[in-house]
């Protein structure tokens, strides 16, 4: 027990002193927070970060839903293979993965060549928000697929066949029966992916452009270049609070806890 206390101190003291610093320099004031909303930059960056997170979440849902559905439909062996594949991004080193995306998306890289081959030269995704989105979606997809899979796995597909038997078209049957039943997993996955994308640092720093920086880069810049510790602390606290609120909200939906458990045990995902 003292062990836990000791290490939580090392974790919590910096966070707590951040909070204190953001409120107390130079004197007790909320100015550091007020500045965030008036300096013209922070709000823009926060907005861009949220937009990027939303797009990443949408991409993850669009790709993750059919993948999770496929997982529930194939035989056990294929399922095992597909599940291992889901977890590959988890244990691929952060730097290795981002380096790979950089190479894939750079000018003259395979992706750009492919676009040129299709008659669209000069499509370069590195240095763009689209590139960042692609790289981020890949590593966040597992957080969409796993909760979705546990939710879809519990749905009796005969309901769908029954609806078809009663004369519904496949699309109506899906929309009226399957989708509502899967909503718990969708909500869990969406909140999880959105939350996690807010704190990404390495991917936007390497693949994005400095002009299109996200909140993590802003934090870095405030800290290491502007040495505005109070401002950085305030911004950090804002990001932390938003994250915690979102996670707490996600926790209220059933099945989300297991998803966060997956985050915990599958490792580094949160630390990107």
């Amino acid at each position: 027990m003292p062990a836990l206390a000791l290490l939580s101190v090392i974790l919590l003291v910096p966070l707590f002193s951040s909070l204190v610093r953001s409120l107390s320099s130079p004197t007790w004031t909320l100015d550091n927070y007020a500045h965030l909303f008036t300096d013209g930059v922070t709000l823009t960056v926060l907005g861009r970060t949220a937009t990027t997170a939303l797009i990443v979440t949408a991409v993850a849902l669009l790709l993750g839903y059919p993948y999770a559905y496929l997982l529930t439909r194939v035989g056990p062996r294929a399922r095992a293979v597909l599940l291992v594949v889901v977890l590959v991004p988890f244990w691929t080193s952060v730097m290795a993965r981002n380096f790979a995306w950089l190479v894939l998306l750079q000018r003259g890289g395979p992706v750009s060549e492919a676009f040129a081959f299709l008659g669209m030269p000069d499509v370069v995704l590195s240095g763009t928000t689209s590139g960042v989105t692609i790289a981020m979606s890949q590593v966040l997809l597992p957080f969409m697929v796993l909760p979705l899979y546990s939710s879809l796995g519990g749905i009796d597909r005969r309901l769908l066949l029954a609806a078809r038997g009663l004369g519904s078209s496949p699309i109506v049957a899906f929309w009226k029966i399957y989708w509502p039943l899967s909503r718990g997993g969708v909500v869990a996955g969406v909140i999880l992916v959105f939350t996690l994308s807010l704190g990404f640092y390495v991917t936007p720093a390497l693949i994005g452009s400095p002009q299109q920086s996200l909140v993590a880069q802003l934090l870095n810049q405030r800290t290491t270049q502007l040495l505005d510790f109070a401002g950085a602390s305030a911004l950090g606290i804002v990001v932390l609070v938003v994250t915690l609120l979102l996670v707490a909200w996600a926790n209220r939906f059933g099945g989300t806890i297991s998803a966060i458990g997956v985050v915990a045990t599958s490792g580094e995902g949160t630390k990107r």
Partner: protein
Amino acid sequence: MTATTTRPASSDSVADATAAPSRPPHRRRRSADPVPWWLIAIGVVVAGYFVLPTVIVIPMSFGGSSSFQFPPKEFSLALYERFFTDPKWIGSLGNSLLVAVLAALIATVFGTAAAVGLNALTGRLARAMRTLLMISMVTPAIVLAVAVYISFLQWRITGTLGGYVLAHATIGLPFVLVAVTSALGGFDRRLLRASASLGATPLHTFLRVTMPLIGRGVVTGALFAFVTSLDEVVIALFLRSPTFQTLPVQMYTAVTVEVDPTIAAASSLVVVSVTILLLIPQLVRRKTPRS
């Protein structure tokens, strides 16, 4: 069949995470209810998306060109040679391993003790501790990095081995806690009483009963703490000093400043060794008896 052996140690490793939320009803009669082709097509594409970056670093590492290029134009071991001879690279690898071993060690000792203590605990304190644990896991790395950096500046431990170890032990601790707690979840505390009634001191009981039964969780947690530290880049970027850099930081520099393709070799080595490391708990599991 006791509860301890039948319950799969849930989600204490990567592959268990795959098994944990599973158990969808099996569907047969493929002819009556076939999997549509477009679904398979999407599945294949998404699967490719998952593995693509991991797969391309390996051929790239045998490239040997002086810039980042894919597909590589030639086959050579030049990048590996440079990785293992350039003190910048091999030195940062040494630093990383040192930090990771120490951080994992501390995280494992403290995390195991905390998990055992927490397990005996119920009520408000335990809930508070779990909440704390959750917070530490969902805090974005950059937020933590900035906070830790500023505090460490004040404590004058940025750029020191101690600073790295402390920070990495802290982020590794939750993994140990979760893994050991999950192993303890399948652990029947009545075994402790049984052991005491058979004449074993608490220390013997811990060594001969508790440890063997939660050992897998401890190993898993230690591995995760080790890998987490080995791979951690955000905090390391803040704590780096000209004299002490970890491998991920060197890789970061290789991409952003130096345009040094040796990173391909480094990436391949890290990917392959981490994969092997994470397979260890799986192999350990094989050895335990099953009915």
